């Protein structure tokens, strides 16, 4: 904060004491001292590290990442077996982390928006129920929720053996979905020749839906004519794909899970630990997002609602055209930091044995190789990259919103 004074003060010659007393130079002194202390501190830590390593006859090396991991991982998004390297095992873990974080974020958003909006509902019971949900999940540690939900799942769902026999205790839903305490088994699509065309048609209809909606909006703004939105979109989405599907002789079929031996075979297994972690994180984070959404909606002044009502908009349109767009600007930054929290909380996967990167790199690899410093360092690096990426996205968004505002 440089202030301009009229007569230029007589230029003093530099004295050493000015480093302490003169505000022009004191900053440099402080910075120099801080830097020096920091360097000394780091050097001290480094020196201790070296001495400790020498004392214990160890070293820092990342060679172990190239050696066979020799453990199995139950959920693999890329091919992996026990002869692959620790590096690949870590990568399998990374993908698992990203998977559960992605699923969790999507579900948490849905839950959070629903609960946040319903909490403001005029229905007393629903509002109270949502308040109860938010409070109970916000005020109990997520680790306890993960454990509770995991054990609820294992206790409440039947074991695969319950599906066995002529008169089984449990049966599959529609003959296609099996809910067991080892996870949920769903049919797996099998892509045969011609399936690519069906997918292409589907994608094309997606584009068409968007085009239609844009056209309808434009028409609405230009002429005031309101085209129906719901059913034509649905029709555009489904009909061509179905036509293509049957015209090409049903190139996509489903492989149903089937109980063979100890487990259900075929189909896709969504593991119990994944589901437990996913739900626990989603419900927990959802409670926080609900609060953000509620705060966002309440931040839009009541005059906006009244003005929209005065224009003759119906309540649902007031919500979607007036309130939400304005609330969104307030809601999105905290929600993104909730996504960040969710991703970081997913490291608690270890409590339910979900093999995320903390479970593989920070867990079994660390245990088996004893390379604590290296493993923990890589682990932190990974989370740091994820966090910084999400922060960068958030900053981009904030800047974009700012520009629009002014």
């Amino acid at each position, binding site marked *: 904060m440089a202030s301009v004074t009229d007569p230029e003060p007589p230029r003093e010659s530099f004295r050493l004491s000015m480093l302490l007393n003169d505000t022009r130079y004191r900053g440099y002194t402080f910075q120099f001292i801080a830097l020096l202390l920091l360097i000394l501190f780091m050097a001290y830590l480094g020196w201790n590290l070296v001495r400790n390593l020498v004392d214990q*006859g160890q070293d820092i090396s990342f060679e172990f990442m190239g050696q066979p991991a*020799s453990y*199995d991982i139950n959920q693999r998004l890329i091919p992996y077996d026990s*002869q692959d390297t620790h590096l690949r095992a870590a990568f399998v873990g990374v993908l698992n982390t990203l998977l559960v974080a992605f699923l969790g974020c999507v579900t948490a958003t849905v839950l959070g928006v629903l609960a946040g909006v319903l909490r403001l509902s005029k229905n007393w019971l629903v509002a109270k129920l949502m308040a109860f949900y938010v409070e109970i999940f916000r005020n109990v540690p997520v680790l306890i929720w993960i454990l509770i939900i995991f054990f609820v799942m*294992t206790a409440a769902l039947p074991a695969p053996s*319950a599906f066995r026999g002529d008169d089984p205790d449990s049966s599959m839903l529609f003959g296609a979905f099996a809910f067991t305490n080892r996870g949920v088994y769903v049919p797996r699509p099998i892509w045969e020749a011609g399936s690519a065309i069906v997918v292409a048609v589907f994608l094309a209809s997606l584009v068409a839906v968007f085009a239609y909606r844009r056209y309808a909006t434009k028409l609405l703004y230009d002429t005031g004519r309101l085209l129906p939105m719901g059913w034509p979109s649905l029709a555009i989405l489904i009909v061509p794909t179905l036509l293509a599907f049957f015209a090409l002789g049903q190139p996509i079929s489903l492989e149903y899970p089937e109980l*063979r031996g*100890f487990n259900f075979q075929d189909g896709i297994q969504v593991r119990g630990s994944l589901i437990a972690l996913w739900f626990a994180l989603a419900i927990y984070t959802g409670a926080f997002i609900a609060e953000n959404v509620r705060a966002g909606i309440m931040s839009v002044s009541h005059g906006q609602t009244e003005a929209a009502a005065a224009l003759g908009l119906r309540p649902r349109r007031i919500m979607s055209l007036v309130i939400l767009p304005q609330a969104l600007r307030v809601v999105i930054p905290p929600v993104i930091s909730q996504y960040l929290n969710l991703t970081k909380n997913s490291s608690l996967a270890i409590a339910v*044995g979900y093999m995320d990167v903390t479970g593989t790199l920070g867990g079994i690899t660390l245990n088996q190789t*004893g390379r604590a410093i290296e493993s923990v360092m890589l682990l932190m690096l990974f989370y740091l990259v994820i966090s910084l990426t999400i922060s960068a996205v958030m900053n981009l968004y904030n800047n974009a919103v700012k520009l629009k505002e002014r």
Partner: protein
Amino acid sequence: MNRTVFLGALAAAGVTAGVAGAATLDDVKARGVLNCGVNTGLVGFAAPNAEGEWEGFDVAVCRAVAAAVLGDPSAVEFVSLTGKTRFTALASGEIDMLSRNTTWTFTRDVDLKFEFTGINYYDGQGFIVPRELGVSSATELDGASICIQTGTTTELNLADYFRKNNMEYDPVPIETNAEALQLYNEGSCDAYTTDASGLAASRATFENPGDHVILPEIISKEPLGPLVRHGDNEWGDVVRWTLNALIAAEELGITSANIDELSQGTNSPEINRILGTEGNLGEMLGLDPDWAVRAIKAGGNYGEIFARHIGESTPIGLARGLNAQWTEGGLMYAPPFR
């Protein structure tokens, strides 16, 4: 506001600069307490009871060493460690010895720079399955879901075994023994694998132990024993020979009942040497002559400790098997005290 609690803690309890490294023995004596790393909770081996007293087979080794060195079997600070934290705790000097059913392996000995001071339990990895599954051999487990405690060598053994036999399996890793048992009991996995001793201990806690079978295959060798840091051989000797004294005591018939009588002097030179009435073995270890008497008095000889914590009369009900004395067909074989 509360910042001073921290400083106070720093001043009083915090930086206990225990000189580990070279002279653990002097250090333990100066501190008056042995820091011993144990399991966070494994029935029969190490678990605190309702009164908060640690007890178990591994705990007894710590107590014997404390009795030998400090003269007081209760002068032990038990540090509960997970599979992940145990080695760092030992390497950093947080604990003086680790007695936490740890398997003696090449890499742990050589690469991680630890010294295994003997074996107090010969174990092997086995499987437990519900009887109704109708499985009688581990080779029939192709395609099964198998619960494992993560962070142990059992994971690697399991991977090796199934690979070797060309079988598929679905590992269900879980953090603690108790949680693994819960999953197993709910049918989330078809089999549970861990050290055979652990299986027996766990089966004892089931609602109907008879409904579960421990399969005959033992797929690994798991020699479990206490360990110390590399490079402090004097301390290593103390732990090693305390354990050996317990084992030898059983072989020579020294029990907690007759030890007072025997330590007056006997006709057996070896008993006399162990109990310090003859020779100066204690002095060589840097202890006093009565060291072994106190160690054995702490919980009895090896056989007594075994019987009290994990033997056939306990809920865990382990037979001696490989852990019998060599004179009875087992592997327990203490080198001579000479």
